């Protein structure tokens, strides 16, 4: 049972709900009910306005938990909760990790980081019971998060095990022959290529396939986070990688499912656990196709925004950040209060098509 389900069960008895400091009404809003539906219920019970309540929402079939998908995605193959805090294959046991990632010190004190990345076709479950014929890096969407420190040498052996030409195109400083975008950069099926460059500048970047047709190659799932840390390390924090993505399941040029890290509504059922007072740093990347803009809004909180993460100073304090396709940002905040904090795209459509979830803040 997820935290959220537990909480729902707890709220069945009033004593518990008081102890947790959450009213039933508060939970209804937390559960993703739009204020409009709650508003109609209230309106029609107000005698002066009852006549205006033209909505059909009568108490007969009123179900406060009606929004959202039915069922759960099988997370044994890909778990977004694990993905959040994994980079350089840190989620794998050491022996297995060695196969995909090795690091070694260099003369100047920096490191050489070597990766094994392969492109492969794979069907993935993106919403409960909805399967998408993805093109993936290492069998997962988003691809593995690569993380280096400014000045490190990055060497990636890329093998195309897929059925179409693919590449890895990195956002960051690199010479043109490492760009993975031109005709001569295409890695055909069963071929491989070694990308090598210095990790620069520091910030939150991304990599994605740059084969044509671009829209298809990207939205089928060929993208991942590329984080470059400054030489002088950032303050230690609980760090989270979030890629805002979408899936056009019927290939009509419009997304049917939106999420952070692929699985619709995942963090509704598995809220992201954070500690009160601890610095939380989110590396947010927008890889949504078809819609020019995506956004992130966090309830009851504000965060410092570090656009593209390339400067040490925050340029804004906000509770909503808007990002174009391919845009990235670092968000930093500290949770003050215990309980559930919803976060979602402030495009309500995206939110209701899967891009919404919860943080749950607990005493440290």
């Amino acid at each position, binding site marked *: 049972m997820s935290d959220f389900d537990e909480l729902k069960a707890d709220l069945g008895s009033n004593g518990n709900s008081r102890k947790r400091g959450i009213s039933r009404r508060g939970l209804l809003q937390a559960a993703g009910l739009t204020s409009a539906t709650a508003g109609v219920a209230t309106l029609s019970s107000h005698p002066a306005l009852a006549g205006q309540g033209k*909505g059909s929402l009568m108490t007969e*079939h009123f*179900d406060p938990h009606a*929004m959202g998908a039915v069922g759960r995605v099988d997370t044994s193959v890909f778990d977004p909760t694990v993905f959040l805090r994994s980079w350089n294959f840190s989620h794998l046991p050491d022996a297995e990790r060695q196969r995909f990632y090795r690091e070694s010190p260099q003369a100047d004190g920096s490191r050489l980081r070597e990766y094994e990345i392969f492109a492969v076709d794979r069907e993935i479950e993106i919403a409960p019971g909805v399967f998408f014929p993805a093109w993936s890096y290492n069998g997962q969407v988003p691809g593995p998060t690569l993380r280096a420190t400014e000045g490190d040498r990055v060497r990636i052996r890329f093998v195309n095990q897929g059925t179409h030409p693919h590449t890895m195109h990195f956002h960051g400083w690199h010479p043109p022959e490492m760009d993975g975008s031109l005709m001569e950069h295409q890695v055909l099926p069963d071929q491989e290529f070694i990308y090598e460059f210095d990790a620069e500048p520091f910030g939150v970047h991304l990599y994605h396939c740059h084969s044509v047709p671009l829209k298809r190659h990207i939205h089928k799932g060929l993208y991942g986070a590329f984080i470059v840390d400054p030489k002088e390390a950032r303050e230690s924090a609980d760090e989270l990688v979030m890629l805002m993505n979408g899936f056009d399941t019927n290939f009509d040029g419009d997304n049917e499912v939106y999420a952070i890290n692929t699985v619709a509504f995942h963090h509704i059922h598995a809220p992201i656990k954070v500690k009160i007072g601890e610095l939380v740093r989110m590396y947010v990347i927008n890889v949504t196709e078809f819609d020019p803009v995506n956004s992130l809004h966090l309830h009851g909180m504000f965060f410092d925004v570090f656009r593209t993460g390339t400067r040490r100073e925050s340029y804004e304090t906000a509770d909503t950040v808007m990002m174009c396709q391919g845009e990235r940002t670092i968000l930093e905040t500290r949770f003050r209060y215990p309980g559930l904090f919803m976060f979602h795209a402030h495009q309500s459509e995206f939110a209701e098509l899967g891009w919404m979830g919860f943080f749950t803040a607990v005493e440290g």
Partner: protein
Amino acid sequence: MGSKSALRTWLLALLPLVLLAALLVAIVKLDPASALGGDAPPVEELEFERVVLEPGRILLTVINDGPDPVHIAQVMVDEAYWQFTQEQAGELAHLDRARLVVPYPWVEGEAHEVVLVTATGMTFAHEIAVALETPRPSGQAFLLFALIGIYVGVLPVTLGLLWYPLIRNLGRSGLDFVLSLTVALLVFLFVDTAEDALEAAGALAESFQGVTLFSVVAILAYLGIEALGKRLETGKGALSAAWVTALLVAIGIGLHNFGEGLAIGAAFSLGELTLGTLLILGFTLHNTTEGLAIVSPLAKERVSLGRLAWLGFIAGAPTIAGAWVGGFVYSPVWSVVFLAIGAGAIAQVVVQITRGTAGDRRLGELITSRSVFLGLLAGFGVMYLTGMLVG
């Protein structure tokens, strides 16, 4: 034919069937289709058959119209994933139906869109153009639909019957005029019914082969009415030819009106129709001519008021039944069937009246006569103009 040769006939009839059965078994066992690309992605087809709006929820009946099984994974309403329950959860095989209940706070008078997302990510959309609560079979709703039926069917037809005394006093050319007017309006009704039927056929799941279904049922209805007419003329207690014609016209129009009631009831309950004054006015004008059509063959008969009322009942009352069926248990397949019966019946009646009017005259002579031509013209004109009112 002796019993031995009868057995032989049966064997000869059954032999190909037995071989066919063996062939079917072989096809299933050997699966020759797999050699022709068994890896092809599934062909998914879902058709919405019925959408019912209740306070705070939407009930959907969908049918799998494709060859491959379909698994409904999620339901989207107005671009939001929504909770739903499926009666008898699981995959739908070819022609399986699923009933889905979606608790959704729909808004009266506004548009909504329901989208079903299958396991492969295919989507099937249905637009609710104007959200209105679907009438449930309550006493009040029954009364409402009965009222619609009375306005649209019973009253106009009964009014039209009052032309009977006029018909009695008409001379030959006057009668020709009225009868050809009747033929014209019946042809108009035939086209009207066929159009409705073909429209319903188009909305049908492809597996039900709407247009073929319509054609076959219409032809059978034509032959059925033809046979009924022969029976009434020759059987025990035989009726006069004029009476038979009048009765068949009443039956044909009754069947048409059942289809009309069906369409009105369905449209009304789907929120596609509001019964305004203009519409009632239109139907009344439009359908009054139907009464005239029934009495026009009776010029040389003495008819009691009671019998006249019966004819009116046969022609008009089915509208009420149609409205009930259409409003409460609308089914696209049965709509096509009923409309096809109406069309076939009317076609037969057109032929019946033409025969009666012609008498011993040749058809060529008949249609060139002035009164017949003017009658046809007047019939089409009246139907076309009053038809504009009911759109």
